[in-house]
């Protein structure tokens, strides 16, 4: 354990902590943080533990945190009955497409507006910034209708390319490209690279950090996305994890095949991949949230 003597910066330092009252204050700060941590981690822990409970056990009084036994058979049974591997796979397919679209289309647009600056690029920039304040649900009806008219029902295409029109990701790319040295691009032009070649041979390789940030945000957003996928993916064989959850939760109680215990298992299954993903990319995620101010 570190000693308070090593606290040399910030509002309160080691010289304050010589007083007992400050030491007590420090203890109180720790206690408050611990209480908040209980609030943030208790619900998911309950969820994981409750996933092992039977429907009957869930409604049992008195309440117990731990299940009577860790019934992996139940979990595997639900996985098999729902054929859940299929939904995982569908989600992964959508995520890969979403990341590619997100990097290519927002990246290219930012490249054109930040570096190429053709006549009229300001109008495009204005349109993109303006779309920041329009939540997609606002005009969900006409959008959905256009998707139907184009015959894209049950297609992953709209769910992937929608991430290519994201003003947040565009701004991240543009801010980064704005900071690139001009000499870099001039050198490439002298070498006789075409504009597209400059983008993928020069710009993308030196922009790895921001490509990483946008990709991480896109993975999380595409995994969590459910409204458009729910409207578009009518065929069960095509549905993603979140669509399945949304449908299970809205039909709960109307079908005899599944109850709340099934939904709990499925919820746990939907949380596990992003948790694993988070622990792999923890550093990048926490630092990019802090610096970009984008939360999801």
């Amino acid at each position, binding site marked *: *354990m*570190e000693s308070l003597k090593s606290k040399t*910066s*910030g*509002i309160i330092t080691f*010289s*304050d902590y010589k007083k007992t009252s400050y030491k007590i204050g*420090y203890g109180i*700060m720790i206690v408050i*943080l611990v209480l*908040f*941590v209980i*609030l*943030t*981690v208790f*619900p*998911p822990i*309950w*969820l994981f533990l409750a996933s092992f409970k039977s429907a009957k056990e869930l409604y049992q*009084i*008195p309440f117990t945190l731990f299940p009577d036994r860790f019934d992996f058979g139940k979990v595997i049974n639900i996985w098999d009955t729902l054929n859940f591997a299929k939904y995982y796979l569908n989600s992964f397919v959508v995520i890969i497409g979403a990341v590619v679209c997100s990097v290519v*289309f927002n990246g*290219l647009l930012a490249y*054109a507006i930040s570096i190429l600056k*053709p006549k009229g*690029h300001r109008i495009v920039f204005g*349109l993109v910034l303006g*779309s920041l*304040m329009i*939540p997609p*649900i*606002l*005009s*969900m*009806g*006409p*959008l959905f*209708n256009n998707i139907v008219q184009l015959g894209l029902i049950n297609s992953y295409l709209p769910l992937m*390319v*929608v991430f*290519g*029109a994201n003003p947040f990701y565009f701004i991240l790319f543009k801010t980064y490209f704005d900071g690139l040295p001009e000499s870099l691009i001039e050198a490439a032009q002298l070498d006789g690279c075409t*504009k597209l070649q400059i*983008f993928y041979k020069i710009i993308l390789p030196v922009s790895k950090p921001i490509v990483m940030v946008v990709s991480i945000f896109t993975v999380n957003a595409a995994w*969590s996305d459910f*409204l458009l996928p729910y409207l578009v993916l009518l065929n069960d064989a095509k549905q993603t994890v*979140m669509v399945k*959850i*949304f449908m299970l*939760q809205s039909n709960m109680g109307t079908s005899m095949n599944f109850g709340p215990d099934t939904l709990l298992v499925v919820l746990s299954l*939907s*949380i596990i991949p*992003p*948790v694993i993903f988070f622990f792999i990319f*923890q550093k990048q995620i*926490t630092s990019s*949230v*802090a610096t970009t101010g984008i*939360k*999801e």
Partner: protein
Amino acid sequence: MERKIVQPKLQNKIVLFDKKELGAWLIMLPSILLFLFFIWIPLLSNISLSFYDTIGYTKHSFVGLEKYREVLADPIFLKALVNTAKYTFWSVIIGFAIPIILALLLSEVIHLKGFFRTALYFPNIVPGLAAVIMWKFLMDPDPSGVLNSILNSGSISPLPWLNSQALVIPLIVLTMTWKGAGATTLIYLAVLQSIDNTYYEVARLEGASVWQRIRFLTLPYLLPTIRMLFILQIISVAKVFYEPLVMTGGGPNYASISLLQLIYHYIFKMGDVSKAAALGVIVAIILFTLTAIYLRISKKSS
């Protein structure tokens, strides 16, 4: 003499310029089409649909502002409008100070720093849909529900939770805060860590108390961020949609329905596309106004 030399060069430049323009526009074209398809064309269709009676998505007859009148006369619209104000109010009461306090604590504590930061950020990793369904379970009004069981162990009688018209909005806001506060905390923490430590040293040498240091050093330094995140929070709360959709369906008795949710309700429950379009235009105007206020204030503070 000079003219003759300059002119061919100039022509050459113009030709090059045009080619450069075309290439750049071709590079932008696919992305522009996507923005048009997903955002601008639906918005324009919405405006146009809002002046018509429709059958499905086909315009039937021009009705002028009739659909707007219908929306404004709809008692559910009034509820949704008031509810949105309530969401905003409660999100300021419940959600606004918590990230600031947590960031201050995180920046001051030296024990288990990494653990605290990760644990407080953890809810942000949980997908939104999963988070709201999980909280719906926790807030089960049945005496066997998790929160009711905890109340019961303190001999408090069970609460109706989301079934209560008075509690429903604060509880949904609580869920949203649970999900989002960790990320906001990280933003504040980054600002706190950028404060030059010599300020604090000088303040300490001059005998400023801890409260004075916070009041006259830390808070003024945080203020621009606080102001910006405050307005961004209000704008994002005006967009609340899936939380009440999933947790309550807008109930009980429309006590938690939001404006965007009402658009969804008009289209997919009532099949009235043009009424939804009119409401969409109204909400767009509200969001536009809020954003304009935000831009004005953020310009002032910078």
